[in-house]
């Protein structure tokens, strides 16, 4: 996912000299090609994210298009006021790119896990939020971000995410994607956990359960139509996110459902239930320890169906 982002950024920078790559001493090796070929479009700010975001906003006010990249936590939490006041309030054409969202940095612990990033960023006006599920979507999202004249936040996992999409995938900003249609239950998910959810859906299909799977690659603005259409069609919605259940994908879907009040829809949010991620180990290990394994998703889905 990260490499797909970097390749897209490279192509953008080759075409437009105003496109800049800003980093906070994060991205050794992976930025080497960019640095070598476009040294005047690359700035390493050192470990000073607040300054990086404000400087990026100032540069944007003079026509630059900075892609500000570092570990997601350090953009969305540490530099939050800079994001709010300097980027969003002033509608600056700054792209904020957070790497390592969810708990893909599985052995680094909760200081490096971005499990509230969607919640905090969703609260800000004037920003578009993208959450790609795989490499191809990362590329398409990066290209789409450059087309938007205003603040964008892209939340990326690291390298090595398995593919979710086929070659012929057409991406439309703001429109959720039905990865598989079904009639008994809808699962809405986003980001790198999508692959795990896909596995769970396959398992359920084997058990004879008809599941509709929706990937919500754009968190803001949220695709209300696909949520309400899914509610109408399947009468049960489960959201799955590698994130707190407060204010992220599940929160966004809940807001849409609560205001539209479709009749008799069962609804459940899966994710971190008011706790920080626990444990160390492989990405698979930590998903399992935090209740987001394929088996746990199948179990929650079945539970929701039982109460239908």
């Amino acid at each position: 996912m990260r490499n797909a982002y970097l390749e897209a950024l490279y192509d953008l920078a080759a075409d437009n000299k105003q496109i800049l790559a800003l980093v906070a001493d994060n991205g050794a090796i992976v930025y080497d090609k960019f640095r070598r070929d476009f040294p005047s479009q690359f700035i390493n700010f050192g470990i000073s994210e607040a300054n990086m975001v404000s400087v990026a906003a100032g540069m944007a006010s003079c026509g630059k298009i900075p892609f500000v990249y570092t570990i997601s936590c350090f953009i969305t939490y540490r530099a939050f006021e800079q994001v709010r006041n300097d980027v969003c309030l002033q509608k600056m054409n700054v792209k904020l790119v957070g790497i390592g969202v969810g708990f893909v940095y599985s052995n680094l612990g909760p200081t490096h896990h971005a499990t509230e990033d969607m919640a905090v960023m969703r609260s800000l006006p004037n920003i578009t939020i993208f959450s790609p599920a795989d490499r191809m979507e990362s590329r398409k999202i990066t290209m789409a971000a450059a087309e938007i004249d205003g603040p964008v936040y892209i939340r990326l996992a690291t390298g090595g995410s398995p593919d979710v999409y086929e070659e012929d995938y057409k991406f439309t900003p703001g429109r959720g994607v039905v990865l598989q249609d079904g009639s008994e239950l809808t699962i809405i998910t986003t980001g790198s956990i999508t692959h795990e959810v896909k596995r769970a859906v396959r398992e359920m299909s084997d058990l004879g359960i008809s599941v509709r799977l929706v990937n919500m690659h754009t968190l803001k603005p949220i695709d209300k139509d696909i949520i309400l259409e899914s509610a109408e069609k399947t009468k049960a919605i489960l959201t799955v996110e590698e994130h707190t259940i407060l204010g992220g994908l599940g929160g966004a879907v809940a807001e849409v459902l609560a205001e539209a009040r479709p009749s008799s829809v069962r609804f459940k949010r899966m994710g971190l239930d008011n706790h920080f991620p626990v444990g160390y180990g492989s990405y698979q290990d930590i998903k399992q320890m935090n209740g987001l394994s394929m088996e746990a998703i199948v179990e929650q889905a079945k539970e929701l169906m039982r109460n239908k």
Partner: protein
Amino acid sequence: MEDIKTLEQKALDLRRVIFKTICNGGGGHIPASFSIVEILTVLYYRIMNISADNMNDIDRDRFILSKGHAGVALYAVLADKGFFHKHHLDTFGKKGTILGGHPDMYKVPGVEASTGALGHGFPFGVGMSLAGKMDGRSYRVFVVIGDGECQEGSVWEAALFAPKHNLDNLTVIVDYNKLQAMDRLDEIIPLEPFADKWRAFGWEVREVDGHNIGELLKVFNLLPFKRGRPSLIIAHTIKGKGISFMEGIPIWHYRMPNPDEMQQACKELGLKVVDGVIQ
């Protein structure tokens, strides 16, 4: 000498406008606005290449008031220079106005950045300077920061960053009035040795009397102090300069004068009060 007298008169006129605007608006930071009046006067009337006619030119000089709570001082200058009509000053702080307690770049013509939260305008200005350097532009960037603002960590992140990028198109002026909201600055978190700190970070530093028009003219005309280095001016100022009973008293940071105090202040500034309204 003639010119200095003209600018001194301009500074006095601006103080009158600022005081009247804040009092009629029902609240504001009078002393913090008064401490930067001469700095703004010299910058806007003699130094910077910025006017209502070229405010959208890419090569205009940029000014950022990082200590946004002194916004009324900036409004007074911008109105006088014709960036917007003076009648807006009468609406300050009232429903429907474009002029709030902190400047908004989308509402107020001539305001380059929306400031208010401290420690933001300075790195924002650094970004403008860096963009100008990258594009080979001739414009310069001037940022006024507060001394209390220098307690923000983001100020020192930007202070580390600017010299690395040789931003000699950037000038930061610290309004060193030595007071903050609750007390004297040196009793809260002292900054001294202040000039040495900036020098150690790679800035070219000069100190001036921030109310002395002649000194300010002289120092601004020397910019950049050194090729390849950002310039830092420590302007020694008096918070509340121009109203004797406010000068150097922390409690006035956001306090409004009562009717007697208003009479006294108006007398000192040469303003008339009729039926409680400043003329």
